[in-house]
């Protein structure tokens, strides 16, 4: 929506990631390289999508960015204070706490009005007092989204947040995500293997190679999300297909 960033916020919402290399020790004692000289930069308020084949190291990259994996060669500069909101592939809710408690524990400073708006947008109002075990996967994903937004993040990280939902529900959740980001712009990194999803949500797409992952191509999308026509989307898809093919030659 605001590729140039929100003017009310300083230019500090910038994310810079440089990974020279990252490898795992394999069971047989060798080393398996998963990331190879990979750099991405996101401007304040920009929504970027990381697209690549499954198993290419996207999740590893996310773990490095959010600080869960420090064993790598390179550097990560988080926005300003580095307040993170994350949606993992699985919802990762505390089963013994209610929906509302799950959100409040992650975001103790969030006011009642913020929570009310979030629960309203994500249609969670009647589930506030439910336990995660009583929710469907779609609802649990919504709670994870609410939790990530409630912390008022400077960087929002989404790891395939709509995977294994039926198409209709995934589309509805995508629309809700767009609505939340439109209301409160935040530097966002979305990991997906779904090109369609990336084109629908992102301002900039990073195409990743198969393992060991590096950036094959960077595709900026000029139009705001709300006015992307079917023709433009088809054109972007074609460009992505071309760039992928060119890089693999």
């Amino acid at each position, binding site marked *: 929506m605001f590729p140039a960033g929100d003017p009310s916020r300083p230019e500090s919402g910038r994310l810079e990631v440089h990974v020279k290399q990252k490898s795992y020790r394999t069971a047989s004692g060798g080393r398996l390289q998963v990331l190879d000289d990979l750099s991405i930069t996101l401007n304040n308020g920009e929504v970027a999508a990381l697209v690549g084949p499954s198993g290419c190291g996207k999740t590893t990259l996310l773990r490095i960015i959010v600080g869960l994996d420090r064993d790598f060669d390179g550097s990560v500069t988080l926005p300003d204070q580095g307040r993170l909101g994350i949606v993992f592939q699985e919802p*990762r809710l505390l089963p013994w706490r209610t929906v509302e408690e799950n959100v409040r524990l*992650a975001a103790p400073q969030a006011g009642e009005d913020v929570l009310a708006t979030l629960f309203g947008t994500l249609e969670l109002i009647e589930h506030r007092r439910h336990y995660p075990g009583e929710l469907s996967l779609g609802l649990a994903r919504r709670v994870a989204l609410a939790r990530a937004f409630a912390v008022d993040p400077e960087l929002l990280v989404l790891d395939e947040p709509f995977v294994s939902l039926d198409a209709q529900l995934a589309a509805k959740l995508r629309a809700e995500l767009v609505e939340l980001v439109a209301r409160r712009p935040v530097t966002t990194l979305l990991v997906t293997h779904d090109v369609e999803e990336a084109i629908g949500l992102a301002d900039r797409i990073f195409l990743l190679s198969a393992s060991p992952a590096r950036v094959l191509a960077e595709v900026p999308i000029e139009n705001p999300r709300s006015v992307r026509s079917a023709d433009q989307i088809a054109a972007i898809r074609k460009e992505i297909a071309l760039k992928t093919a060119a890089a693999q030659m």
Partner: protein
Amino acid sequence: MTNVALRLASIVLLLAVWFVGAHFAGERLLPGPQAVGLAIVNEARSGALAFNLGVTLARVAVAFVIAMALGTVIGLAMGRNALIDRIGDPWLVALLNLPALVIIVLAYIWAGLTETAAIAAVALNKLPIATVTVREGARALDKTLDEMAEVFRMGRWVRLRHVVLPQLAPYIAAAARSGLSLVWKIVLIVELLGRPNGVGFEIGVAFQLFDVTRILAYALAFVAVMLAIETFLVQPLERHVSRWRPKQA
């Protein structure tokens, strides 16, 4: 309804067996239910029953709380930290295999026939079992929830209370259950060997007088107290900590 009826029938059967057994064994070896009931009433009238039960119960409570608290802390540390586990494990195995009687006698020799020695001896007997159980729970902690808590920058106390302890609750409950019955049995031995009051002391006196009626009176009274604690304290507590689990239909 049938459950309650079956329970009652079982208790009636037990009393009948006891009654018939007493008839054949004779009053001296096995007094009947009515004689034991009368003895309980007499001890209660004089105030001795309430006093001795109270003293024993206080020792059980203090030793139990100390053992459970220490066992939880040590078990958690050992389950979470490989170095602590490696250093602590031989101590644990030694303590686990030291007979209760040895610990009690040594405690009385080293610290005198004092209340502190008595309670320390009981707590030390219970400690290794509580530690082992909680360590098992700490090893089974969900790593994905840990990561979630880390990315959302949850404080130490919040993590312990809302992420770690609810996962340990079933293990702590199991340790508490088996612990309570173990502790009260050991408390009786400690009282028999070196305390001037309590149920164990009374049973020791009755033993010297060959007063089976009094032995049974005190034993049954204390079993009743423990049964009440189990029904009105332990079970409601278990229901409370597992309230989030979806009910079986």
